[in-house]
């Protein structure tokens, strides 16, 4: 590089050393891993023709399954939002025996095969399970094999996404801002509502987006607890599997494409919201 600097003029010097090579490798990799499979998914359904795709998606079962997948993912992520914040807070701000153990436990849903999680949750929440039996006896609630069971599985799967996105921001923030607010006469709830939460909002939104995206596509854990009744507890990924079982590859890809587009729209909206938040704070 120094030889180039000495002999050639500044016009020959790339702004970043090795830009061409690294950019090329990055794009090739992203193309291979992300773009090509997604493009294949986007192309496959059109084997049916436009009318075929419309017909394949107009099935009320598809609408019900998509509604359930996105609805349950939304509810589960909403449940996870305060829960995740609370956990992150406990890990960063509090010192108690077992804090490290708790810290490690939170990552378990990342590592555990989702089918294992699904089977464990079903065993626990089934009407004859440890938790399911008392819930049934005392309140008459059945969790497993209902939509509530799906939400329970998604809460489990999505939780670490929120904790792990909020935690570093909370750690970086320190207590200075809160202490300053206190010296200016803010009460505890005021400091929390006006100082802490606004600073955490972008991280919470990111965590929301990640947990939501993960929950929408979740199959392994949900399938065991859902009951899988058409129109009631049948999730969209199961519908994809069902169509594959019928060797209907294009129809399966059509549902996949619909999920992809819906997820993309929601994540885009979250990103825009986040940008607006950031601009508002400046």
């Amino acid at each position, binding site marked *: 590089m120094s030889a180039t600097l000495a002999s050639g003029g500044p016009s020959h010097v790339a702004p970043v050393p090795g830009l061409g090579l690294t950019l090329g490798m990055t794009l090739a990799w992203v193309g291979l891993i992300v773009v090509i499979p997604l493009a294949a998914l986007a192309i496959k359904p059109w084997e049916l023709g436009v009318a075929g795709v419309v017909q394949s998606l107009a099935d009320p079962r598809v609408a019900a399954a998509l509604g359930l997948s996105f609805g349950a993912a939304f509810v589960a992520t909403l449940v996870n939002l305060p829960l995740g914040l609370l956990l992150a807070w406990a890990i960063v701000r509090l010192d108690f025996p077992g804090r490290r153990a708790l810290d490690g436990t939170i990552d378990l849903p990342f590592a555990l095969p989702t089918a294992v999680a699904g089977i464990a949750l079903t065993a626990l929440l089934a009407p004859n399970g440890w938790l399911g039996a008392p819930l049934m006896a005392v309140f008459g609630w059945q969790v*497993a094999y209902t939509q509530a069971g799906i939400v329970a599985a998604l809460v489990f799967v999505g939780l670490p996404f929120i904790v792990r996105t909020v935690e570093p921001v909370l750690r970086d923030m320190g207590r200075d801002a809160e202490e300053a607010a206190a010296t200016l006469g803010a009460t505890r709830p005021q400091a929390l509502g006006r100082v802490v939460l606004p600073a955490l909002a972008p991280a919470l939104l990111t965590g929301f987006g990640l947990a939501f995206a993960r929950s929408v596509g979740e199959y392994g854990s949900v399938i065991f607890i859902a*009951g899988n009744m058409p129109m009631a507890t049948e999730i969209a990924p199961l519908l994809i599997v069902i169509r594959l079982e019928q060797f209907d590859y294009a129809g399966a890809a059509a549902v996949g494409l619909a999920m992809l587009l819906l997820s993309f729209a929601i994540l885009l909206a979250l990103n825009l919201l986040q940008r607006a938040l950031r601009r508002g704070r400046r």
Partner: protein
Amino acid sequence: MLHADRAATRRSLLTALATSLATPALGQPALTLLNVSYDPTRELYREYNQTFAARWRAQTGQVLRVNTSHGGSGRQARAVIDGLQADIVTLALAYDIDAIAERGLIARDWMARLPFNSAPYTSTIVFLVRRGNPKAIRDWGDLLKPDVRIITPNPKTSGGARWNYLAFWGWALRQPGGSAATAEAATRQLFRQVPVLDTGARGSLTSFAQRGQGDVFLSWENEAHLALEEFKEAGLEIVYPPFSILAEPSVAVVDANADRRGTRAMAEAYLQGLYAPEGQALAARHFYRPRDTALLSANAARFPNMDLITVDGVFGGWAAAQRIHFNDGGVFDRITAR
């Protein structure tokens, strides 16, 4: 913390990948045969693979290893279509082998190449109930009692569940005044009383035996016997309805793969061996009904005589049954839509 975990996971994944790539090259004999099968044949083929390999070695001197892969029948067929190098398929229903044949991997006339529609053993659908049969379920009509809850997998994802559905439909057709319309109404009622639809027979059996769901599980005969063993503490009983369906789990050599890999001779010998006395005895031992009539009557206590309809006889073959009942927009979709 997280990054350390992820790095560790990645490392272990890489190691796993490296070992899984390395083993076939190092540890196995040169000759292997892959049998792609469905779920409840695990025990049968584990035993048959060993006897066949021993016999093949005695006959030809070649050391052979037979591997078997198990899973839902439709999923297994799809894996073969998508490139799994199976030499042989032994699946739950002819329709799944037809699907492979349609894509040119198996000759279209595969069913005529071996005796008995290429189904060396048969099975049927029976009821598994709880100890003492508290809801007194003896025949298909008892399933429609209002307080009975039925466990079956989803016919759209499970081969076994399609046999369940067709057996019930066949029963409904035989009732006085039975027609397609009355059968559809009865089947609609049946599925109203199904609380959980798992994707496969294994999942349904777990829901029934371990999670305490439902009063009766519609089961493959052979799997019902395995379940009695496996879930001894759950206290289950088999009920043989007087009427059921003749399930013919079919077998075929995957021509395209066997020819390319040069395994045709042994693949054909493998399937023919299932019809030989030794193979038939093994099938019977693992609760499949043998085709050998002498052997079947010798085992009459385990395989009670039942009035069995066939898919060809009542539904005009699997292709028609699939199209009318199970494809998107078919009868099953209609009766489960609310």
